[in-house]
């Protein structure tokens, strides 16, 4: 890499001569090594999913949490360094609480995403701190009128709203798969339901996972649905869907072999 050894890549407060901030790009690398995270906006809510590598069989299931409830109406998943992600989770909870305290209604997704993006961006501005080594997928539901929203915040502090998005190891393949679900039909609201999306995302996780290279993994999912508080998708449901997806994938590959 042209950046290495130049001395322009040692601090996030240094621009390289061609106008890049390498430390932010390196932080992004930490995210790209992480298990694939995905989010999808559905007709009845928003669903987030994350692939978690199981580092030891002695680990209690659900340990090393990546999907977090932020408020009754908001959830997020962390892609990248888990411990960095928790700082953003804490901040997000604080923002939700402050907004509700001050305005008497739950924080709108756009504002929460904006505030978190500001927060993340702040860590790219000062020499005394390092940028976050994680990206955040944010799912918020603001009732019937505003509906469900999905945002992604990157280590640089950039944030966009999405119909569906993916980040992490398998992001390219996952994005291609998500596009096939054709969710960005702007004429109509998304046709897919959360229940259906659970199956679709499990399938995508299975398809982007490289069995030969990667270790054992589990899927964690979280959703915010119409009129219901943000909640983890029950583990047994995820497990069932995951097993089905695996079986299908194996059946497919067997057919190819023949």
């Amino acid at each position, binding site marked *: *890499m042209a*950046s*290495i*050894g130049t*001395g322009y*890549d*040692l*601090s*996030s407060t240094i621009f390289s001569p061609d106008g890049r901030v*390498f*430390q932010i790009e*390196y*932080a*992004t*690398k*930490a*995210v*790209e*090594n*992480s*298990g694939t995270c995905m989010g999808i906006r559905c007709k009845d809510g928003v669903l987030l999913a994350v692939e978690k*590598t199981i*580092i*030891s*069989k*002695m*680990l*209690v299931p*659900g*340990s*090393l949490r990546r999907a977090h409830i932020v408020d009754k109406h908001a959830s997020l998943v962390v892609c*990248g*360094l*888990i*411990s*960095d992600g*928790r*700082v953003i989770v*804490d901040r997000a909870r604080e923002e939700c609480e402050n907004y509700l305290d001050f305005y008497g209604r739950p924080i709108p997704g756009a504002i929460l995403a904006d505030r978190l993006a500001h927060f993340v961006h702040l*860590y790219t501005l000062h*020499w*005394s*701190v*390092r*940028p976050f*080594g994680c990206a955040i997928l944010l799912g918020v539901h603001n009732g019937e009128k505003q509906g469900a929203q999905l945002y992604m915040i990157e280590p640089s502090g950039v944030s966009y709203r999405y119909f569906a998005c993916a980040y992490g190891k398998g992001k390219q393949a996952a994005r291609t798969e998500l596009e096939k679900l054709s969710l960005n039909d702007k004429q109509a609201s998304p046709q897919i339901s959360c229940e259906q999306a659970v199956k679709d995302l499990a399938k995508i996780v299975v398809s982007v996972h490289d069995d030969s290279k990667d270790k054992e993994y589990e899927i964690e999912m979280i959703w915010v649905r119409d009129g219901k508080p943000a909640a983890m998708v029950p583990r047994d449901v995820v497990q069932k869907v995951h097993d089905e997806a695996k079986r299908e994938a194996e059946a497919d590959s067997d057919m190819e072999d023949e």
Partner: protein
Amino acid sequence: MFRNQYDTDITTYSPQGRLHQVEYAMEAVKQGSAVVGVRSNTHVILATLKRSASELASHQKKLSEIDDHVGVAIAGLTADARVLTRFMRNECLNHKYVFEQPLALSRLALSVADKCQVSTQRASKRPFGVGLLLAGYDATGPHLFQTCPSGNYYEYYAMAIGSRSQGAKTYLERTFDSFPECTVDQLAKHAVLALRETVSSSKDTELTLENTAVAIVGKGTNFVIYEDDEVKPYLDMIDADEEEQPAEAEPAAADAPMTDA
């Protein structure tokens, strides 16, 4: 060496997106003498190997009580551990003062992990060079947690950290399926047997009354530390059961810290 450019500052990522300073702090944990934690459906047991600086020095204690229902075993820099221990005692006391209930283990582990994370993100700090095994019993039963300098924390059925802990880990991985139904004595035996794996490869060390300590916490039992003469029953237990030969210790596999684990 290019590598040196990126490994001297806690706020600097390497081009691969790694944080070398944090990884080095994780190494400090591996330098500490071994500690083992195991959990059944009712109890958690910690077993530790103590070191002494010289013949004339006492053995460094590695177990601390945090509250009636929690205790920790440490591996790494003892002085750093003392800071975290004090922090945890404070957290437990505050929680008890406000809610008149013991602090849940998961929350305690979370708050320690959050504290560790802060010192991985600021130029003016260094990470804590210590790993902890938290053992405790709360409203949701017995729990065993591990915390790392990276700010990660894990809940385990059984775990070993510290120098030569790979041997203990191998033993635990082989046997942990049977732990849930274990009695306290059986569980303690597994803990001490696992701990013995960490000394079996060196000829001049073995588990003795001086260098071994065991702690138990569980349903109806507050956290208690057994050391010196009190640890004798546990050592006798494994002596009485010599036929089971320990497996050869494997070389420690480098766990990549801070990367997606």
